């Protein structure tokens, strides 16, 4: 199990690093997919099966595909006229801040006694339970989420359609 953790972590970190550093946008998104897969693997490892499946379904099936579409709609189709820089002109700013943040988080995590905790038990959550909780205890956030998603959907369509409407 430990090995699996290290492999998955390597996949996620490599995927993430590639996703933000590659020149070609499509390659970036493909690495992002690798990253998403690693995260999904982590969820399976942590016994959150449902979340893992949801991660794949939503992130790979929807978000990544959406990004590919966005790239297709905003770049020349072949996509190779990507940014000339590997990391943008102000890479040092981003890098520096990120390193500071990572270092600080790392230090805080190290210092905290909680970090040494090992799993005290294993919980296998069934989907049925999640479903039940979703429509009883969490029904209001659930409905709110439904409204939010609908609003986001309509909003996205309207934003993207704007020009066509103006032309009419």
């Amino acid at each position, binding site marked *: 199990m430990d090995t699996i953790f290290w492999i998955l972590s390597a996949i996620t970190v490599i995927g993430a690093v590639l996703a933000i550093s590659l020149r070609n946008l499509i390659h970036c998104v493909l690495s992002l997919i690798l990253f998403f897969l690693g995260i999904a693997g982590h969820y399976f490892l942590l016994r959150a099966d449902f979340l893992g499946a949801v991660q794949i379904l939503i992130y790979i099936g929807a978000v990544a595909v959406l990004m590919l579409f966005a790239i297709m709609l905003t770049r020349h189709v072949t996509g190779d006229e990507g940014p000339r820089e590997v990391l943008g002109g*102000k890479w040092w*700013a*981003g890098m520096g*801040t990120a390193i*500071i*943040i990572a270092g*600080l*988080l790392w*230090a*805080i995590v190290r*210092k905290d006694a909680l970090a040494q905790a090992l799993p005290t038990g294993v919980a296998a959550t069934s989907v049925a339970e999640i479903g039940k909780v979703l429509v009883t205890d969490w029904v209001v956030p659930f409905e709110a989420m439904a409204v939010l998603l609908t609003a986001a959907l309509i909003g996205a369509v309207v934003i993207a359609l704007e020009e066509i409407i103006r032309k009419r």
Partner: protein
Amino acid sequence: MDHAEYLQHLARQQWLIPLFPLVAAAIQSLLKRPARKLSAALTIITMGLSCILAVRALLATISGPEGIHHEVIRTVFNFTWFKFSDTSSLDLGFILDPLTAGMAMMVAFVGFWIFVNATGYMHDDENFTRFFCFLSLFAASMLGLVISNNLLLLFMCWELVGLCSYLLIGFWYFKPSAAAAMKKAFITTRIGDVGFFLGILMLYWKSGTLLLYTHDPLHPGALEQVGALAQLSGWWGLSVASTVAFLLFIGAMGKSAQFPLHVWLPDAMEGPTPVSALIHAATMVAAGVFMVGRMYPLFTAEPNAWVMDFVMWIGCFTAVFSATIAVAQFDIKRVLAYSTCSQLGYMVMALGAGSLAAGQFHLLTHAFFKALLFLGAGCVIIGTHHEQDMRRMGGLRKYMPITCICYVIGMLALSGFPLTAGFFSKDEILLATFHRNKLAWGLGTFAAFLTALYMTRQIFMVFFGRWRGGDEDPGHGHGDKAHEDHRHHEPHEVPWNMWLPIAVLSVFALFMGWLGTPWYGGNLFQQYLAPEEVASVHSDLVLWLSIGVGLLGIVLGWAIYGRKTMEHATDEDPLSTAMSGLFTFLNRKWYIDELYEVTVFRFTAACAMFCRLFDKLVVDGVLHAITWGAWAISQIFRWVGDEFFINGGFDSGCESVRLGGKVLAKLQSGRVQNYFRVLTLGAAILLLVYFFT
């Protein structure tokens, strides 16, 4: 379920009464313009449902299984809206007591018939759906106001009522006069609302709650603490209770159009006539009087405070003042508008004289016959193709018989003709005032005389004599220019959905007063609403005098206007020929608007002028003096030498400021990522702080 539980159940369901129109308004706001029938049906049906609920509540407060109640049945249902902390929370509540039940029934019932009439009146309007949406919202907010057991909830609905009146008065917002009227109504009532809000704040500050009744000795409601509040001393030499009452009354003055703040009400005639009916009878102006009635314990808490006298005199003055104006108006709706002002003055006077029952009773009866009169006026306006000038009417008796009969009934009720609704309620008021203050009573009686006079004048001008609609324009008429081509058409009777409401209302205008007669074992209405009040001692003088002046007014009106009716639209008013100066004075509404123009407006302008002068003379003078001094000193310095320091210093100072501005402007780079970077740095600093502490 025993009766107490049933009442509790009803109180818990009070919110359903405003809910129906509110839902209707919500649905209508989504409807498309052509959905006229659906919209009207929604409004009317939901109002009918509310009316049924209101009647159910009313019946439960009147009698239980043991027969008629002999004390006030007051049931409340309170709940926590949200908590500020563990100890303090904001509670809202609904109330069911005779005041609420009677008022809700009146609002729902009268509103229902007004809505029916509006389907006819607005038949040709293209914004029919919007109109009914506003109407529903108006009714909902008024019903919400009536049932609320919390001053804040009441205030919210109060403001909603104001908003709806704003929207509806300006419904034809493309007319400049309507746009001006809507603003005027909103701003004038807002002046009163300042007082109201101060009153609410003070009440919350002193009593710690905004709930009116709780029936809980541990957490008494605001009105259950009046005894304690009357002991605390407030402002202007009053107790807290009276101070709050005074502040609240200022709000009521704005809403119920009492004397200094009455100016919006006549201008509100710019709205469609059903709106006028709604504002004048059931909702807007009634809200003020109702609120005073609701908070009445505060007013009576300190028996010898001047607040009650203030209330009475304001009411009394408004009653006489508006009645005199009404005598000299030519616009059919404007006469009614001033008459409303005057009748509201009556109600306020009754409240000030210490009789809650009389004031509220007049509020109820007045609602019926004033709605009747306004809807009748609407019928006349429709029947004469949008003519509002009474000089261009006449002889409508022959063309519009049903409207004429109903209108005459409404006029008799308003004039206090014996045995009609207005007679009994007005009599109660005069009786109560008689025992309080003889002068106020005298003025009230005079106002009653004037009421009879101007109503008779109106009847004779509108319904009798010759049809003058074909005549040329009398000059300053208020006719709608858009309907110029309808001018020469004959008037006609209105369709059934317009005359049916006034017919129904006229039945009530005739017989409703019998609830309040003192003749069979005491005043039923007073026993229902305020049994603890001591009934005013009956006085033959008051009774006969009020009958007398009413009849006198009618006879005089007949003598002046009926014996020889107007022949032409250009004819002068007989009163005008007799007393032209006075008549013009009254016709111009005592020059109140002009007075405001020369006082309030001038005062504001003068203040501004003064400020400008102050700025110019004092501030600038001081500055100039300083400058001259500085110049002199600098001359000295210059002559002393050291030009280098001063010049150089100033230059570099300016330069550094400019540079600083430039640098700071760079922060606003318009680049998202820069902001993001700063944000991240901030987060990093926070983390650092967390790490080292």
